[in-house]
């Protein structure tokens, strides 16, 4: 006899769907089926059941093989590594709970580490733009209930945030939008004909790397000022038409992703997109929102914010918090050889950082805390498997619109496997002992 767990939170992307239903075996140990989740989300739950899952910490040997070690040894190695390092990097934090982040920050404060999250290679540029010009935004429910103009700029939710459009942005019937997608006009700006672009009412196939120009052109068009014949490969008439579509809505929203945050111009693109949104508020109501990737990268920014005052790239090595992306950001530190130990939790820099940074991680004392085998775990000296947050342990997470949702525990972790919080708490306690002797 199986039982069903409802209102389960999906620990995959920033959409943070909270309506999953998971069928669990009677003994509460095995997940049998998942409803409502997208293909990626379902896979995340099923992956926890994989027979090849690593269940004990593993230390890499000089010949590249692994030796299983106990959690005690793993705690000892991690604590010693952080204690002895002059300037350790503690990176990741985006695929774990706020509770774990909090303990991690306490450790970082003690050992004088740099705390950085995945925003550093993702929406960090957005955060910088917000520091320049602010951000008019709203919750996703506002979009569902009010929005009739939806713009996806440099993002492809059909693949990256699969349920975004059905839950919040394009299809749902809300309070003032009772005809669902019939109430809405969808604009997609993307150099590629993505699946998202295919369902748009207007697709602006911008020339690659020319988003800044097109954003500026929309701002010009809003003011009825003259435009050249084409901007960024888009004919003037289409730009004016697009500006009219935006202006004529009752409530509009720009969603944007990696296509603008990590292409040429980076934070300046976002500056301009935010200013376009602000300009549009002269005519109607408009908001803008970053399509955050990891399910709790937003939470990492929040916890760092209330504890230290900065959303990412926080350097605690001088005894007080400093923030200077470009100097205190992970890749810059790694490539300049400024850090002497690397601790990774809840992210996979091995797969996403430039190879020059990855090589540095491989050379340094390093710990990777992750339930999966990842490129990062493969290059780290120590791999500590932990319970899956949102599957085997609960904890708070923040959705892309900063709405906090408490993830649920669905099944027990494999016997003896620690959670992020448990592992970090033990490292923290060991550090207290080590520092007490200092």
């Amino acid at each position, binding site marked *: 006899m199986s039982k069903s767990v409802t209102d389960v939170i999906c620990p995959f992307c920033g959409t943070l769907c909270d309506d999953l239903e998971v069928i669990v075996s009677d003994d509460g140990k095995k997940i049998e089926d998942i409803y409502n989740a997208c293909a990626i989300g379902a896979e995340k739950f099923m992956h926890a059941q994989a027979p090849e899952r690593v269940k004990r910490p593993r230390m890499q040997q000089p010949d590249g093989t692994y030796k299983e070690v106990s959690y005690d040894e793993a705690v000892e190695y991690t604590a010693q590594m952080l204690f002895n390092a002059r300037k350790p990097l503690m990176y990741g934090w985006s695929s774990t709970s706020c509770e774990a982040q909090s303990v991690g920050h306490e450790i970082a404060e003690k050992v004088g580490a740099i705390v950085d999250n995945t925003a550093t290679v993702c929406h960090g540029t957005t955060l910088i733009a917000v520091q320049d010009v602010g951000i008019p935004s*709203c919750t996703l*429910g506002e979009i569902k209930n009010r929005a009739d103009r939806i713009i996806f700029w440099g993002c492809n939710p059909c693949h990256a945030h699969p349920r975004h459009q059905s839950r919040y942005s394009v299809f749902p019937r809300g309070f003032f939008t009772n005809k669902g997608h019939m109430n809405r006009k969808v604009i997609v700006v993307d150099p590629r004909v993505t699946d998202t672009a295919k369902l748009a009412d207007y697709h602006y196939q911008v020339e690659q790397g020319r988003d800044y120009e097109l954003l500026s052109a929309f701002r010009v068009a809003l003011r009825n000022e003259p435009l050249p014949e084409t901007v960024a490969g888009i004919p003037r008439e289409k730009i004016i038409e697009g500006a009219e579509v935006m202006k004529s809505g009752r409530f509009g929203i720009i969603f944007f992703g990696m296509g603008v945050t990590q292409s040429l111009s980076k934070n300046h693109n976002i500056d301009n997109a935010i200013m376009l949104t602000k300009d549009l508020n002269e005519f109607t109501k408009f908001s803008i929102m970053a399509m955050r990737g990891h399910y709790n990268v937003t939470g990492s920014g929040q916890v760092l914010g209330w*504890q230290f*005052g900065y959303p990412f790239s926080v350097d605690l090595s001088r005894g007080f918090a400093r923030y200077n992306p470009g100097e205190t950001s992970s890749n810059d530190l790694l490539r300049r050889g400024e850090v002497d130990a690397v601790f990774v939790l809840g992210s996979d820099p091995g797969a996403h950082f430039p190879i020059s940074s990855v090589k540095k991680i491989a050379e340094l004392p390093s710990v990777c805390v992750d339930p999966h085998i990842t490129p990062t775990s493969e290059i780290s000296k120590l791999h500590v498997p932990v319970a899956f947050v949102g599957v085997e342990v609960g904890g708070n997470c923040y959705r892309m619109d900063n709405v906090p949702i*408490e993830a649920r525990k669905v099944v027990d972790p494999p016997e003896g496997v620690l959670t992020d919080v448990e592992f970090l708490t033990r490292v923290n306690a060991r550090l207290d002992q080590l520092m007490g002797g200092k």
Partner: protein
Amino acid sequence: MAEYIIKNGFVFDPTQGIKGDKADIAVKDGKIVKSTEVSSKAKTIDASGKTVMAGAVEIHAHIAGPKVNEGRNYRPEDKLFTYRPKSASSRMAGGFSIPTTFKTGYEYARMGYTTAMEAAMPPLYARHVHEEIKDTPIIDEGAYPVFGNNWFVLEYLKNKEIENTCAYISWLLEATKGYAVKVVNPGGTEAWGWGLNCLTIDDPVPYFDITPREIVTGLIEANEALGLPHSVHIHQNSLGNPGNYTVTLDTLKLAEGFKAKNKFGREQVLHSTHLQFHSYGGDSWANFESKSKEVMDYVNKQKNITVDTGCVTLDETTTMTADGPFEHHLTELNHLKWANVDVELETAAGIVPYIYSPDIKVCEIQWAIGLELALMAKDPMRCFITTDHPNAGPFTRYPRIIKWLMSAEARKKQIESFKHSAKMVEATHIAGIDRELSLYEIAQMTRAGPAKALGLSRQYGGLAPGMDADIVVYDFNPEKPHKPEDIEKAFSAAAYVMKTGVPVVINGEIVSNGNKRTLWVKAKVNENPQVMRDIRDKFLRYYSVTQANYDVSSHFVPNPHVIEVDATH
């Protein structure tokens, strides 16, 4: 538990009418007791030549939650030169107008504040508010969920369904672990969903077809029917606009005819917050002037109203409010970076940095108005000192405001230093006021008064036996001659602070993280299947989270102090 006796201080305690007499305060098991009740083992704290008061109570500040944190994250410049490294008993802490949670706790405690209320909690973000409260050391905290633009409230009050409104308030207080009914720009913030606003109390709310007048009176009625510890706590329409004092008076008059009904000793039915922002005359920034007299004349004679000042401190700060349209208006004025969040079915919020410059006439006038309100108050038990932190200035400036209020000389010096002092004097009353508040009146305005207005007078704001042992010793001798600067210095870093019987500050330094509690109100009402069905329906159709994922679980409120109200009948 430890026993203490605080000896020979000059005690100021409005709850017992003690006005600076020398007395001993004894503490046992976290409570204040009669001096005879402690044993000879009690630890003695020598307070001779010093001022002793109860821990101060903050009635209105934005110190935890989504907009506060957005303020922190989007203003890295606010941290410049402010950081203090960690110590044996404190975490590293920084920030000026929007300090980190750690710094918030430490700074309040250093000034002798032991309780603080977060003034606007968007219900959907309640979990975030509580996460920050959990990380704010030492001080007891509660948070006011906002109700004035909530779709349930708008729909129920449109049909004058007070009982349903009560049931919804009770449900939301429990779901969000909230403390009181907060109203911000009633109707106007919902209108902001479409980029509009309600600037008088009779402007209809788009679609919902209800007026701010109906929202406020309906919520007062519901609040008193429930008998909650605090009254309706209102930020009125048309904040910050020249000439808005008429709207203010219109709103205050809505309380006429209502009588407080509760078991907590609270007497007001309406708390009007940061009144400084609502006491403006003129019809443009050119002829902008103070209307504090008109407003305070009304407040003074209307016994069922309390107010707090919202004093401008002349700093660079970060404004943040659930009054979304106002922040948009402000960014159009000063062109500084604007953040906004509209929250589905509930509220909105905006953030804009602001510089209250002593070289700008309007800011000088605002400075005067804030102080005038306190100086014109006939009953200091009904007028409280705030800065609407961080809107009119950071809470860390309370000692400076106390200095201005206690010293005409300090005010004169400040007025003379203004760039437009002559024009400022013409537009305000401040230069003609020679009243200097006494320490007793300060204790009323920062301790006994706010505690009473919050319905917490049995445990906070006084030094009578049976109350919580929240005690402050300031290095200030009221019998010796002093300079105005001595007042600010003494109130900035207390000589000794005790929080529920635990010493937390000694000589201005943090020595312990105390035993912080979260206050929330559990109001029991009759079963109301209609409201429960409405709630289910709204979650199914309009919210972006499920109902089961909305409640703040006890995990976020590890040390709760629940105040129970029984409104069943």
